[in-house]
């Protein structure tokens, strides 16, 4: 794997997005002069860290900063600014606080800054609560936040629940808008591919918004050649798998929040916790982030030796001049690397400890069995045992969903037995969670195959008399993802799992120990290669939602003079509903293999645990 400098086409500079958001925030703060107290939505705390720090806010008139919750806001200023996600519940909370102020005879000016957009329903709630006249409402267009040179996130984890579980399309406009912004900065993207219902709607909305903007005379050339929109429900299996790349493991075990991770005392070896930013700017991290975990430690070990040699140089310094150079140039760099190295080795240690406890091996065997479709009975037994032993609920649910998603639902008998035992071990209250998972199609019972044609016809007739309500029902039932068939057609399972080369991988499946290549990424590979869906129709047919493609003719004179000649090799992949770090790694690998550079955008970074937790019905 290429460790050294980044090769290939140059990526557009995503930091512009950060600057724009920051400037807008400053403008919003400055637009009402005087000191003000700021109340921040807890959901926005970490993402906002990437855009503006506390000191920046203080420079622009912010006095005290509060977290939005049920407690009363004191603070000494006569202006109160709320910076929140536009949500009904949040708006109601703000309305309640204002009402409480009125009761206490407290007079202040209120401003609500909603991000990513001002919602009319929120206006309606404020109107309903009788406080509309007391507040001024602004919007902050904080949509895609650059987390790295090739990674953008809306940091909107609730989108998954809102859209895929409840069918709420409120965030779609903001997603579309983020794409419009990208295109106004980096030029129109000529080729657009998509898979899924949401992808199609977003593409429609982007078209509408672009036509509202009209023909632009901006000198911006086209820097991004392709856009791929993909719905999360096209591939649930990949994020459900246990991650085994270094960055994936960091996320699974420590939890990466808006691109930063907090290492506890067990990693730092001191009694303090340290929070670090994970980014490609860190040379050590860049070299190991995408590797399979088995291939990380050797590298760190070699690097440590190298570092020692560099340190040892100080003993051989001949002159004061040399000494000066060493101290001024090399030492700080060495120290920086030393620090990074110590932390990553500490993290490796914790990961190893974590995975050697418990039945990690059996769990991996189970996951691989499910992916491959072999020894399924044994896999079910393992899951049942985990339930009986009351292992982590989220982990068990993750395996149950993997089982159901890979097998296309469970046979009635297994479904009922696992469901009952699950509720017995974790509490009947979790019926609410199972209900949500069923709605999502993540944990479902197979439809009886033996129903005679007659019975089926009867059912159809009954459904028809039920009128449109049944239509509704059909729409809610997700199209069964035929994982097995898709897996065969896309060659997701490598033929020889033995002797799989994990150190110098030549197959994307290395990200899952050579057992499985991510469906989402393989699909993207196929479609990019063919510049469309021709030739992969039989695969697309098996996936939920429709697919589409808009290609701009290459010969068109639309190619502006300022165009980046590499743009055809720059691909923006937008995951609607979240993507995992493993998928990002797989795309980076694909890029190296085929000469593309991938930019990954997503509504949020996710993993198996967070995906399951986000649709939980009971805590």
């Amino acid at each position, binding site marked *: 794997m290429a460790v050294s400098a980044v090769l290939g086409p140059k990526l557009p500079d995503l930091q512009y997005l950060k600057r*724009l958001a920051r400037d807008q925030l400053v403008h919003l703060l400055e*637009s009402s002069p005087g000191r003000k107290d700021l109340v921040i939505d807890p959901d926005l705390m970490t993402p906002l860290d990437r855009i503006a*720090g506390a*000191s*920046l806010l203080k*420079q622009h008139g912010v006095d005290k900063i509060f977290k939005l919750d049920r407690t009363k806001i004191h603070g000494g200023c006569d202006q109160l600014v709320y910076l929140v996600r536009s949500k*009904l519940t949040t708006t109601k909370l703000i309305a309640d606080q204002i009402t409480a102020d009125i009761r206490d005879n407290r007079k202040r000016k209120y401003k609500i800054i909603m991000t990513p*957009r001002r*919602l*009319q*329903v929120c206006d309606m709630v404020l109107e309903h609560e009788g406080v509309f006249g007391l507040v001024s*409402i602004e*919007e902050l267009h904080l949509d895609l936040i650059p987390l790295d040179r090739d990674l953008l996130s809306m940091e909107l984890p609730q989108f998954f629940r809102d859209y895929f579980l409840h*069918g709420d*399309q409120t*965030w779609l406009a903001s997603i579309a808008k983020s794409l419009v912004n990208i295109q*106004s*900065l980096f030029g129109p993207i000529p080729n657009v591919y998509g898979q899924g219902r949401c992808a199609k709607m977003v593409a429609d*909305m982007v078209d*509408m918004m672009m*036509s*509202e903007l009209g023909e632009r005379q901006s000198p911006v050339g086209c820097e991004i050649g392709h856009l791929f929109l993909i719905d999360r429900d096209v591939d649930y299996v990949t994020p459900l798998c246990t991650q085994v790349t270094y960055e994936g493991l960091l996320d*699974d075990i420590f939890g990466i929040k808006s691109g930063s991770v907090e290492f506890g005392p067990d990693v730092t*070896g001191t009694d303090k916790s*340290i929070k*670090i930013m994970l980014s490609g700017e*860190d040379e050590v991290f860049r070299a190991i982030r995408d590797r399979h975990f088995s291939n990380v*430690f050797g590298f760190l070990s070699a690097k*440590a030796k190298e570092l*020692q040699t560099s340190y040892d140089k100080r003993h051989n310094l001949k002159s004061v001049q040399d000494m000066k150079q060493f101290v001024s140039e090399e030492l*700080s760099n060495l*120290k920086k690397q*030393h620090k990074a190295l*110590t932390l990553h*080795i500490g993290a*490796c240690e914790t*990961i190893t400890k974590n995975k*050697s*406890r*418990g*039945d*990690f091996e059996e769990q*991996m*065997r189970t996951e691989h069995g499910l992916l491959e479709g072999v020894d399924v009975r044994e896999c079910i037994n393992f899951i049942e045992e985990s339930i*009986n032993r*009351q292992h982590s*609920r989220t*982990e068990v649910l993750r395996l149950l969903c993997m089982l159901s998603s890979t097998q296309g639902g469970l046979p009635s008998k297994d479904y009922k037995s696992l469901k009952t*035992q699950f509720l*017995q071990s*974790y*509490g*009947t209250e979790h019926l*609410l969670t199972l*209900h949500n998972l069923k709605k999502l199609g993540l944990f479902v019972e197979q439809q009886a195959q033996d129903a005679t044609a007659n019975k089926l016809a009867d059912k159809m007739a009954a459904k028809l008399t*039920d009128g*449109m*309500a049944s239509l509704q029902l059909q729409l809610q039932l997700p199209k069964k993802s035929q994982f097995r068939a898709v897996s065969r057609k896309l060659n997701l399972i490598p033929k020889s799992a033995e002797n799989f080369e994990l150190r110098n991988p030549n197959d994307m499946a290395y990200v899952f*120990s050579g057992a499985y290549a991510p469906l989402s990424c393989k699909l993207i590979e196929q479609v990019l290669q063919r510049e469309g869906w021709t030739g992969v129709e039989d695969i697309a047919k098996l996936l939920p939602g429709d697919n589409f493609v808009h290609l701009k003719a290459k010969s068109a004179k639309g190619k502006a003079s300022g165009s980046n000649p590499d743009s055809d090799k720059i691909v923006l992949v937008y995951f609607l509903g979240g993507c995992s770090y493993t998928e990002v790694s797989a795309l980076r690998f694909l890029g190296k293999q085929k000469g593309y550079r991938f930019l990954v955008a997503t509504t949020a970074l996710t993993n198996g*645990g967070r995906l399951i937790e986000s649709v939980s019905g009971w805590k």
Partner: protein
Amino acid sequence: MAGKDQARMAAAAFTADDEDYWEESAVSSSKKNMFDDEEEGFTVLGVSENKAARLSSALRSTVGADALFADDDNDDITWETSSNISNSSSHGSITSDYRSARYTPPTNRSGSLSTSSSSRSTAATVTLDNSLSVQFNKPKMTRSEPMSLEDAIVDVPAKQVTATEVSKLETEIQFLRRQVQLGERARWTSLPVKETIKRIILGQPYSLEAYKSLQDKLALLDAAIKMHDGDAITITVLFLKKTVRKSIFQQELIKRPVAINHLIHFLWCHYDLDELEELYKMLRRMEDVFVLKYKQALAPSKAAGRAQSIAAVVRSFQHDSSLAPDSTLLLEQCTLLQRQLQIEEEDKKIAAGGKHPVFKDHPPKAQLPLTPLTTTLYYCSFYHYNESDSSLSSPLSIKRDFQMSDKQYTWSALNALAKLHRWKEIEALLTSKNWFGGTKMKACIGFEKVVEILSKQKAPVDILSKYLAYIEDPNERLALAAKHKCHRIVVDTLIQLKDRAALEDYRLKTPDYSLERQYLITALNNSQVKWKN
């Protein structure tokens, strides 16, 4: 992986130092690692634990670890100080003085899609000055120095206005006047539905009050659905709901699944649960009604109250056969809650008596009520193992009444007994009688798991050996026996495998002058074994 779950916490809290009971040991460390295996000792994903620890501590000691992290934490996330904030606030700002009757798309210099959220002007008023002033600006050259910025802007070369130009301008004035009039009227008539929805999406001022006919209202809703914006769909569906009779609303809503989704989500977020229930019923989505009612029934935080409210849900759905399986689950929950309350009441008395050895040594640390069934079974196995199965708190009666499997029972009972070091009772638990009155050892969870649990609770070697012997696969048995230092089992297994070389190697692992060493040597000298090497 987020946090420990309730069930586990509750279970672990019953007894002091119970944590390790739920911790699971590695199944077998000597198995071939699936990823990579070049290191000695335990490896995970190809990384040796020991090696990692060694390197890590070596690195830390090079420079004191504290010193290493003490200063210049330039990678840390802080509320960063940033001084280079440009004061250009223009980006994405408002350019919205074009409020013409004919809708014009916003022209934005900065390129990003700007919305004029702060402008509260109404949709259809016209300001002519902008468009006309430019045309009629006569160059004002009268003023002399100093020239202000403003002068500079209007300072365009003088131009003779021709007659055709004048007439052209006059026509334009006429046109714009008509537009003004149209615009004034338009304030009270409706924009095309698509335009209104666009305005909602782009965050521009809009008004729905002009849509008076049912046709218009429906067209508006359909336009919102067609343009996919959730906010617009919610607003228009609520508008329809507010302005037409209920029966009409329902009749139209039922044809629009996307609108239904948005209304439901709105009602959820708005806590209009009664209305939500009514809506589900109208749509005949009984499973959703059931789930909603169940969720509400879980509100009481006390076991008794919750049992009552759940029972009420079960009663109200008893005639719905499609929900029978889930109703049964709820009924079981009620039964369990009531039983937990009864057991707890009894146990309080027993504990207060101070006679019961288990209660005395391990007083319960958490409440039994509201724990899951499996936890309850563990609790009863722990405190009430030997009670007759007519007692409410007997684990066997719980297994029977809740139709739990042998495996479920064995896990709970074994864990509880092992925790209490009651080895005799464990033997009885794993002994099954056959038809002829003979006995046989049997573990439905597998003897390797039995060994695992017992070793966690520090069972003596002879106890472990007894169950190790029942593990069928000799290689698995060998690995586990070696791990737990059950030397006799290792020797026996190596004899079974006819592996003399391995036995030879194992000699040094046995303690000097011990019976086990003696046993091993005897085996090596056994001429009856047909060694394979």
